């Protein structure tokens, strides 16, 4: 997963650069960055709470990795799967923002504090539309398990089309969750330097970056498992299909990043609650009605 996170980071940066008329990094750049940071000295601010400051990168990484086990990568089956695992994944997904908030808050730095507050504000904005839009397809499939849901949509591929509004909402909220432009207000470089990560350095920063890249892999995989759950049954073809699907999702996310300016935090909150949440709720109602008609 961390290997794939490096690959995705490279693809993201390369596409971003090409869309901006630049050359972009070498293929090994993310790995090189990681090892370079590992070798650097870690500085912990005197005022910071050292235990929390040290723990948070690993908490984030652990939560993301744990959640990834429940997502089907090779074919239709995940490593672990039980009915209700989508709830677990969504819970794990809320850990990174909270961990980042704690990391920023206990850095005791004015930039990090503001970044931390913005992360929480943003979380309140995207969490509801994100959850509703992810749960809508499960309502239609009538199961809380990602693996079973994928099986359901494989049997009835046309039903996946019904979820298109939820898919749009989900991809926007996922972009918001990953704190990428235009929703990168919590780490706005030109305002609050880099938000919660401002005091991090060396190994801790390397693992935080890795955790964030892994979060991207997790989110993209979850998205393709829920909204593009098409598999063939042959393992290596499915794996290729998984790569193609994730790259396609990444392309959309990068396009969003390239074409838009950073939104202000109050605009994000307004946008999420005014447009995303009602549409996602509408999707739930539609899916419930269809489900009722089916039975």
């Amino acid at each position, binding site marked *: 997963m961390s290997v794939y996170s490096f690959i995705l980071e490279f693809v993201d940066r390369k596409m971003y650069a090409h*869309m*901006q*008329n*630049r050359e972009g990094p070498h293929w090994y750049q993310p790995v090189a960055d990681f090892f370079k940071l590992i070798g650097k000295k870690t500085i912990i601010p005197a005022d910071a709470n050292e235990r929390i400051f040290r723990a948070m990168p690993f908490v984030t990484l652990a939560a993301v990795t744990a959640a990834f086990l429940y997502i089907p990568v090779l074919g239709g089956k995940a490593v672990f799967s039980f009915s209700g695992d989508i709830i677990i994944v969504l819970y794990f997904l809320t850990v990174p923002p909270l961990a980042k908030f704690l990391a920023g808050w206990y850095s005791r*730095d*004015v930039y990090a*504090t*503001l970044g931390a507050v913005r992360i929480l504000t943003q979380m309140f904005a995207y969490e509801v539309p994100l959850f509703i839009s992810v749960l809508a397809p499960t309502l239609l499939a009538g199961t809380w398990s990602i693996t079973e849901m994928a099986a359901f949509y494989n049997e009835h591929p046309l039903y996946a089309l019904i979820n298109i509004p939820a898919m749009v909402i989900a991809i926007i909220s996922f972009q918001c969750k990953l704190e990428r*432009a*235009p929703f*990168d*207000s919590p780490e*706005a*470089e*030109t*305002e*609050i*330097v880099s938000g919660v990560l401002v005091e991090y350095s060396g190994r801790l920063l390397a693992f935080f970056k890795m955790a964030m890249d892994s979060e991207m892999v997790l989110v993209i995989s979850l998205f393709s498992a829920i909204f593009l759950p098409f598999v063939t049954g042959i393992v290596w073809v499915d794996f290729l299909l998984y790569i193609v699907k994730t790259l396609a999702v990444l392309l959309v996310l990068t396009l969003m990043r*390239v*074409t*838009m*300016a*950073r*939104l*202000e*935090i*109050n*605009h994000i909150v307004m946008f999420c609650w005014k447009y995303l949440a009602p549409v996602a709720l509408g999707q739930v109602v539609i899916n419930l009605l269809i489900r009722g008609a089916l039975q």
Partner: protein
Amino acid sequence: MSEKNNNNIVFPIGPQHPSLDEPSCFNITLEGEKVINAVIGVGYNHRGLEKTCESKTYIQDLYIIERVCGICSHAHSTAFCMAIEELTGVSIPKRAEYIRVIVAELERLHSHLLWLGVACHEIGFDTMFMYTWRNREKVLDILASVGGNRVNYGVNTIGGVRRDLDESINADILKTMDALEEEIKYYADVATTETTLISRLKGIGRLSHEDVIKFGAVGPVARAAGVEDDIRVTEPYGAYKEIPVHIVTDTNADVYGRTVVRIFEMQESINIIRFCINNLPDGPLTVRTPRRVPAGEVIARVEAPRGEDIHYIRSNGTDIPDRVRVRAPTEANWHGVKHMLEGGYLADVPITIAAIDPCYSCTDRATIVKSESGIRDMDWRAMRQYGIDWYKKQGIDLTVFKR
């Protein structure tokens, strides 16, 4: 770093901050995300340029004046040359006047393209930043082929210009202008239709028509509020007396208005450059000027890319000026910034500061220094010594660099 009282945070932007391209300090008092007070601290970049000018000859000063600003270097040296030419009573050849205008407008193009890129970067729209800076390279290439340098072209001299434009350069310029015109049309299109861009710029950093006059703002900041303030039109100098120039104004009076004004001004600059090249008169480039400038004082005003640039020179009849005063446009625009920032949001602070296109080191001046014994004047050597001592106290010994 932060002081907390009544839940207000003092948020420092600077002296070192990613959104500032030169050191300067803005202490922003925040209530949540809202700016309730802004304290602007400039003075990190004082270089003692005016004082240096008083100890060198006029010809030597020209090189110092050219380095007042890294972007509008030509505007400063034009103003300086114009002032001396007025004192000595020479009038420069027509061809030199036209070449000065061509370089000035190329400089405006590159300055505005730079600004557009920086502004887009401030609001997190890096794609536009990369595009505009790519186009800016084209302008810089022309300037390098005209003057030999990318930013300090050294085109001006007292009594004319040092570099001529030949046919091949003219053809080059016209070709680049055609390409740039297309790009600028595209930027105008983006700026007027892209919704996230407009939502980030509209209503931000307002400085109304009355406020512009009250705070004495100049350049695009004033023109964005509908104030028709452009020295090229209101008080034409040099070749501008013959060239048709249209003032670009806007009624938005905010950052969006300033963006629109700058984009359409680039269009206007392209038209002026085309007109100049097609009507470039023949003739010599320089006239002889006396080394000693007659006693007297003079003010020269030039429209720099950032606004009105004023140079004041007092001569005592020797070849060394008695006093040189440079009023860079940013110096006039600073006063309104506090007003623009207060009541806004933190997210808008960088773009609001950037919208006046600040040039910190052009602005920083110090002629008197407050000390415990009161206020005293410092001469050039004392000021230099003060600087060395101050750094020594901070643990930095600059004298080791002197061999």
